[in-house]
């Protein structure tokens, strides 16, 4: 971004903070309903320095990373099969759409029952929520590979494997990474929802703690801020990978 662009981003953020502070001052809301921004900032810093947030964040991060890896990995394989086989698409797509249409919130207690309150249940939920956008993006990407390039590959006697690695994957990559951008932010949602349904540790647990037993609304806001920053960081990580892989075309 240019300097001007950074300045405008900073200006919008400053306006947001001022509006927040203004709302607190004008309405006189008590801090346990809406704490002012400086109090949230202070709590954010202390919660990080006294080690309140870090262990919860690392738990959530592991759930998100594993869930994303499993979900996106399966989605690449299934998405490819959906794109290349009409039979697979006909047989599988009703289940995929049904799984996507069922709210993850409704499934979370079931998974907690099946897989317990440990890591496994969260990984399953994250994988499930990541699966659909990545599978659809893979299917669309593979289908959009230019048939003329595939004919070129055939005229050069490319093997099935060479077609996959030199034509289909590079051509579908922008679409696949677009699906992963969506998927990685959803993975954070999946992890938090899974933690709500039952867990020992994680940012979702910390929100519940801050709201219920600790009655610490500023800590709740600090946790929300951490979750938002985690989502942004993961999203940016996918974009960096995208720049590397897709780059100038």
């Amino acid at each position, binding site marked *: 971004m240019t300097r001007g662009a950074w300045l405008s981003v900073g200006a919008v953020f400053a306006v947001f903070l001022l509006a927040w502070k203004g709302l607190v001052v004008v309405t006189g809301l008590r801090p346990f309903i809406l704490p002012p921004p400086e109090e949230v900032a202070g709590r954010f810093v202390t919660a990080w320095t006294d080690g309140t947030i870090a262990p919860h964040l690392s738990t959530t991060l592991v759930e998100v990373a594993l869930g994303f890896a499993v979900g996106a990995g399966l989605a690449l394989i299934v998405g490819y099969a959906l794109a290349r086989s009409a039979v697979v698409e006909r047989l599988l797509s009703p289940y995929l759409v049904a799984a996507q249409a069922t709210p993850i919130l409704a499934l979370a207690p079931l998974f907690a029952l099946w897989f317990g309150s440990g890591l496994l249940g969260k990984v399953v939920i994250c994988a499930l929520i990541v699966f659909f956008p990545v599978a659809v993006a893979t299917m669309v990407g593979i289908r959009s590979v230019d048939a*003329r*390039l595939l004919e070129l590959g*055939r*005229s*050069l006697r490319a*093997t099935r494997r060479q077609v996959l690695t030199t034509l289909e994957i*590079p051509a579908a990559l922008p679409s696949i990474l677009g699906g992963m951008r969506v998927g990685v932010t959803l993975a954070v949602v999946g992890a938090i929802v899974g933690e709500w349904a039952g867990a020992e540790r994680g940012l979702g647990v910390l929100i519940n703690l801050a709201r219920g037993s600790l009655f610490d609304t500023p800590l709740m806001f600090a946790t929300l801020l951490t979750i938002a920053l985690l989502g942004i960081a993961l999203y940016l990580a996918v974009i960096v990978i995208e720049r590397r892989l897709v780059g100038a075309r």
Partner: protein
Amino acid sequence: MSVAAPRAALQAPGALRLSGLDFAFPTRSGARLPVLDSVELDIPGGSIIALIGPNGCGKSTLLRVVAGLLAPNAGEALLDGVPIAGPDPRIGLAFQEPRLLPWRSTADNVTYPLELAGWPAARRTERLASLVGLVGLDSTVMASRPSELSGGTRQRVALARALAMEPEVLLLDEPFSALDALTRERFDLELLRLWERAATTIVMVTHSIPEAILVADRVVVLSPRPGRVVADIAVDLPRPRTIADLDQAVVSSTSREIRAHLGDPDAAGEVFANGHAAATALSARSREELAS
């Protein structure tokens, strides 16, 4: 006569023989749409043939049969006396559009066939250097992506790629049709220089009568679909040819002859008039086929 004649007499490699080639596309209704009708053609190794005909007459299909991308329904295509069973490294194919891989650099596009064939990197680099010289590619664009290249440069890259495996036969499907007229003439002449050095057989599909005459030893005229060879006209121009050769009297008489075989009534109409005649003839023919 031409440089190709003595080469052919010595049974040069890259000789093509098409005998009784039939090809039909299956249609949705289950009927077959005949595209090629017992095509007979003998192409000596090292010669240049131009294929010309109305739109949709099966020129590109014929080229794909020779390239081994489509299997004929009857008859066979022979390369050096052996039937062509599928895509063959001895046959290089350049399409109407460059068909470069947009995510690869110029150099990696040119050497793509070598990579698929499993050549080690050092040999690929070596071959790249000679290909770049052969097609006159500017060496400063080696790292550029196709989107950064001009149309003419892209077509040069495609030509270099088609020549990468040192094919005996080069099949060109209207390769310069997207270029402006002046660039196209220049490319035609460069193609001739390239042919003199690379000694390949060239079969070029074209819509342009002047281009066919400038480039080819023989101009083969196909009928409207289903395509049959209706004329095989020798171009009696000495080689090496230059653009000035297009002013010779023999060019206009050859051109008249080609036009007459394309079915143009006054033998002076534009190419689209031929297209119209072809469409009329086609619909008449398909009605007959439906009736039978």
